C-alpha cells in the first residue's frame, strides 16, 4: 500500500471560479487535509518500514542475529524456487479468473441488456455470488460442493449415474485432483457478477440513436456488435480487466481456505507465500523483500489501470 510516483496526466481542471487569492487557496485545502494526512500516515509509512525491513536478515526465531544485509534478501527472492512457483501460480490464477469472468460477464451483460420476463429478479440473483462473504464462498465450495463424499458435484454425478442404472457415480476428490481449477472456478463464480455489472453499465451507456441508425441501414446484429458495440465497450472491458486484476492478484481468502496453497505448493500464490514466510517461517526480511517485489509488480499493472480510469475520468470532467 504505497503510491505511484507519476499519475497519468489528466485534462486541466475546468476553470470553475475566477483566479483565487492566496488566502482562498489555503482555505480550500483545509477540508482535504485530514483525509490526506490520514492516508499518508496509514498507507505510506508501512511501506517505508517494509523497505527498511527488507534490507535486514531478521528471523524472529533467532532474535540475536538481526543485522543489515543490504540487497541479499532480494537475491533470495529472485532465486528462490518456491517464490518463482508462487509468481507463476499468481499469474495463472489471476489471468484465468479475470479472463473467464470477463467472457462470462460479457455474455450475461448482453442478455441482461435486453428485456425479458423477470429481468430485474435475474439481475438481483446474478449479483448474489459477488455479495457472499469471500471466506464463506470458499468454505461453501470446498465443503458443500467439492467434497468427495457428500459434495454437490459428486452427489449430482452419483444421482445421474443411478438414474441411468449404474450402481454408483465416480468419487472424485476435486480439490486434490484439480487444485488450481477448483480455486479458479470458485473465484470466477464470485467475480463474474462484478464484470457483468461493469459491462452492463457500458452497454446501457451506448447511444441509442447510433444503434437505431445501424439497424435502419440494415447492418446485421453481428456487424453492429463488432463495429459499434465492441469498440464502445472496449474501455469498459479494459476497466473490468484491470480492476479485476488488481483485486484478484491479492487473493488470499480462497487459497487460505480451499487448498492452503497445496497440494505441495501447486496453488500457493504470492500473497499466501508471503503470509507463510511471515507467520510460518518467521523470515521477516525475506517476507518484506517479497512484499517490495509485489508492490513493484502492482505498480506496473496500476499504471495501466490509472491510465484507463484517467481517460474515463477525463471524459466525465469535460462533459
Amino acid at each position: 500500500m504505497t503510491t505511484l510516483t507519476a499519475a497519468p496526466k489528466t485534462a486541466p481542471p475546468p476553470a470553475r471560479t475566477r483566479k483565487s487569492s492566496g488566502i482562498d487557496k489555503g482555505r480550500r485545502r483545509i477540508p482535504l487535509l485530514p483525509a490526506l494526512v490520514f492516508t499518508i500516515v496509514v498507507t505510506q509509512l508501512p511501506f517505508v518500514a517494509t523497505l527498511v525491513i527488507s534490507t535486514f536478515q531478521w528471523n524472529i526465531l533467532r532474535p540475536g542475529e538481526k543485522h543489515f544485509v543490504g540487497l541479499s534478501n532480494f537475491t533470495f527472492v529472485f532465486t528462490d524456487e518456491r517464490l518463482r512457483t508462487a509468481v507463476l501460480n499468481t499469474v495463472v490464477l489471476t489471468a484465468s479468473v479475470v479472463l473467464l469472468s470477463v467472457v462470462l460477464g460479457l455474455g450475461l451483460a448482453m442478455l441482461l441488456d435486453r428485456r425479458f420476463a423477470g429481468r430485474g429478479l435475474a439481475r438481483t440473483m446474478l449479483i448474489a455470488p459477488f455479495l457472499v462473504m469471500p471466506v464463506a464462498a470458499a468454505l461453501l465450495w470446498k465443503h458443500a460442493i467439492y467434497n468427495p463424499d457428500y459434495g454437490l458435484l459428486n452427489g449430482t454425478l452419483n444421482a445421474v449415474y443411478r438414474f441411468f442404472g449404474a450402481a454408483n457415480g465416480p468419487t472424485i476428490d476435486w480439490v486434490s485432483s484439480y487444485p488450481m481449477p477448483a480455486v479458479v472456478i470458485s473465484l470466477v463464480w464470485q467475480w463474474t457478477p462484478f464484470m457483468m455489472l461493469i459491462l452492463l453499465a457500458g452497454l446501457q451507456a451506448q447511444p441509442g440513436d447510433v444503434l437505431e441508425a445501424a439497424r435502419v441501414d440494415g447492418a446485421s446484429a453481428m456487424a453492429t456488435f463488432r463495429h459499434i458495440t465492441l469498440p464502445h465497450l472496449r474501455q469498459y472491458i479494459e476497466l473490468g480487466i484491470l480492476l479485476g486484476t488488481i483485486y484478484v492478484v491479492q487473493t488470499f481468502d480462497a487459497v487460505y481456505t480451499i487448498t492452503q496453497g497445496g497440494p505441495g505448493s501447486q496453488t500457493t500464490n504470492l500473497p499466501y507465500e508471503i503470509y507463510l514466510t511471515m507467520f510460518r517461517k518467521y523470515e521477516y526480511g525475506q517476507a518484506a523483500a517479497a512484499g517490495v517485489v509485489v508492490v513493484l509488480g502492482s505498480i506496473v499493472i496500476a499504471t495501466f489501470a490509472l491510465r484507463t480510469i484517467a481517460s474515463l475520468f477525463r471524459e466525465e470532467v469535460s462533459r
Partner: protein
Amino acid sequence: MSTHTATDAAPGARLKKLIHRHDDPGGAPRLSPLWTFVAWLATLAFFAPVAWMVLTSFHQEADAATNPPTPFVPLTFDQYKLLFSRDITPFLLNSAMASVISTLLVLALAVPAAYALSIKPVEKWTDVMFFFLSTKFLPAIAALLPVYLIVKDAGMLDNVWTLIILYTAMNLPIAVWMMRSFLAEVPKEILEAAEVDGANLPTVLWRIVAPVAMPGLAATSLICFIFSWNEFMFAVNLTATQASTAPVFLVGFITSEGLFLARLCAAATLVSLPVLIAGFAAQDKLVRGLSLGAVK
C-alpha cells in the same frame, strides 16, 4: 471473433433473429424465448450454490451430508439456534463495530475531502485524486508485516480499533472517488447564484449540496460497509480471541469442530446476510462504487 460482415448473411441473420429487436420506442429490445431460456438457465446456474447454501442451512446434519443429495427433507432452525448457543454473537458484534465505525470515519474524512476536490477544488485536484486512488492499487499483503510489527509494539493486537483504522484507510480512496463523482453533479449555476445572493456556507451546504449528495452518501456507506464486513486477511492475522470478526469465526469453527456441513452453511448464510441485504439495496449504485466512480 470471426470476421462476419454485414454482407455475410447466414450467421449474422441467425443472430439477428435470435436477438431480434421489436419496434417498441422507449424500451430496450426484447430477448427471444430461446435466449430468455438461456438467460434464466445461466442465472439459475450462478445462483445454485447460494440456494444450496441457504437450503442446507435449514437441514439437519444427517440430511445435509447425504449422497446423492436430498433437497426435499424437513426444514429446521436448529443450526441457527446452535450457532447462537456457540457464541457467534461476539464475532458478529466485532464485525458490526469494525464496519460501522470505520464507515462513519471514512465518511467524516471523505466528504470534506470530496468537497475540496469538486465544489471548491484545490489546485491540482486531479493529482490528489490519483494519489488517493494509487494507494488502493497496491497489495495489502505488502503492508501486513510492518502493520503487524507496529500494532504489536503499540500493544494493539487483538483490538477492534486496529481493524477500524485499517478499514478506514482501505475504504477512504473509494469513498473520496465516489463522493467526488456525486458532488460534481451539484449544479454550478445554482452554487454561483447562491453566492451572488450572499447565502452563507451552512445554507449552501444544507439547501443545495446535501440534497444532491445524500443518495451518494448512502451508496458510499454501503460499499464501505461491504468491504469492511468481508475483510479477512488483516482480521485473521491481527486478532486472536477478543477482536475476531465474523470471517475469522467461520474458518475457526471448521478447524476446531471438524466438519458439520449444515451448521457451516448456516454460519455462511448468517455472516453473508448483512452484505446481501446491503448489496441488493444498493444494486443500482454498486457498479459506481466498485469502479471507484469511473462507471455510472
